[in-house]
């Protein structure tokens, strides 16, 4: 077995070790890299800019705690943007695990910075089982699906919600999802009620949603941490996503290096093997 054959059969744990190192190193030696803006992220920003100040908007926390690193920077940047425009924000979640509590934590934190009042400027509806039923049900009446907010206060007692019976009073929907619920926002809510919406999603789901952006069903798209970093820059609040980009760059380079190495050893190793046979 020559060097290249050994390379080809390298124990996967060496790969794991290299990945680990390339993520840890930038934390010790930070790099400062510029970020370019994609048109999809630019249109997310432009669409939010277009909403009249003071409108009611929905911010949907359809992501699990496991994708906080990608999705939370988007939610935070969106809240900066909305609150700056004095929009009334309704948050909800179709994720049972952690969705409502993340919405609660993030929104309250941001609301404090902008001196917003719960019930007047923002409301957290929480979670209900069955996204298909929830999404189509809110078209008729939000109250029938969410009789109370996340902490059990009846909607009638929240001044913001008394003016928002259904989607007709919602000017804009910002969906942040790490799973297929985004499909249903498009196929149910956008298709039947036509509320303009944009989507922030994990990098893994982003390619799929390009087709929704092209068809205008989503007005814009943030893809993964890069998308979050772009939006952070547009909104003017550089935070977690921007710093994470350096580690990201190193891992990408590592994988490209590994793929090239793998292919060289694949061809050379095969050649060596053929020679042995002859």
């Amino acid at each position, binding site marked *: 077995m020559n060097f290249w054959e050994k390379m080809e059969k390298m124990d996967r744990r060496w790969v794991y070790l290299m990945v680990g190192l390339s993520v840890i190193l930038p934390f010790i030696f930070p790099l400062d890299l510029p970020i370019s803006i994609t048109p999809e992220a630019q249109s997310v920003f432009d669409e939010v800019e277009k909403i009249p100040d003071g409108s009611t908007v929905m911010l949907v926390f359809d992501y699990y*705690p496991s994708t906080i690193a990608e999705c939370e920077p988007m939610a935070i940047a969106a809240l900066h943007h909305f609150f700056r425009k004095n929009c009334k924000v309704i948050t909800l979640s179709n994720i049972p695990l952690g969705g409502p509590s993340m919405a609660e934590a993030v929104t309250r934190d941001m609301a404090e910075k902008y001196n917003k009042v719960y019930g007047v400027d923002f409301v957290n509806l929480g979670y209900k089982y*069955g996204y*298909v039923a929830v999404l189509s049900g809110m078209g008729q009446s939000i109250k029938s699906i969410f009789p109370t907010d996340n902490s059990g206060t009846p909607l009638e007692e929240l001044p913001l919600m008394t003016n928002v019976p259904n989607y007709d009073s919602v000017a804009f929907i910002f969906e942040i999802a790490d799973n297929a619920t985004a499909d249903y926002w498009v196929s149910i809510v956008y298709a039947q009620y036509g509320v303009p919406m944009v989507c922030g999603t994990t990098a893994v789901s982003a*390619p799929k949603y390009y087709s929704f952006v092209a068809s205008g069903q989503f007005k814009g798209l943030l893809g993964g941490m890069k998308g979050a970093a772009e939006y952070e820059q547009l909104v003017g609040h550089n935070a977690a996503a921007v710093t994470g980009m350096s580690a990201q760059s190193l891992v*990408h380079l590592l994988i490209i290096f590994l793929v090239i190495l793998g292919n060289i050893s694949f061809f050379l190793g095969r050649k060596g093997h053929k020679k042995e046979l002859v």
Partner: protein
Amino acid sequence: MRTTVPVLIAFISGIVLVVSFFFRKGTWLGDLEQEFTVWLTIVGGFTLLLGVVSITRVNWTAVKRKKEGWKYKILTLIAIFAMAIPSVLSPDWSPLFGRAEGSIYDWLFQYQMSPMMATMFATLAFYIASAAFRAFRARSLEATLLLVTATLIMLWRIPMGEWFLNLFPGDIPYLLNTYIMGGINMAVQRGIIIGAALGAASMSLRIILGIERTYMGKG
């Protein structure tokens, strides 16, 4: 009775939803649709509880019969009860009960479940690297297309890679974004979406008409 009634229920509930779509909201059909979707959330909620009963039973039996690994299963049982019992007790009795911040339920979620979920997801970064290393070999034309595109896109998504791509003539990042992501990738995803939507719609149709009964165990 055992098959006809369920098939009838599926038929009626499905048909109501389909027909009401074509009628304006505010008519009695539209309201029935609304009622049915509320019911669905309730019945669906119960099915999740079914799972909890099921996992408790399985682990309990394993511990009782001292099956392989039963000691670990005790931990599972303890975890279930530690999380479940305080959460259904009224928060009026103690701030440790219920689901609000400061309750046992919330604490276990924040400091145990949350980091565990995040960690499982994070291991994907390691796996994706080793999968790329192992699987991306230029064995055939198809495999080559896959690996070349993946490499280019990875370069494009990082700042220094973009700088590198810009060293070449022609606006490669623009071409990648427009023709690969917005063109080929979008078209293929769309083809798969249309195809899978037809498949799902046809399966739904068969469920409503009672032709498809796999869900009742008549596969």
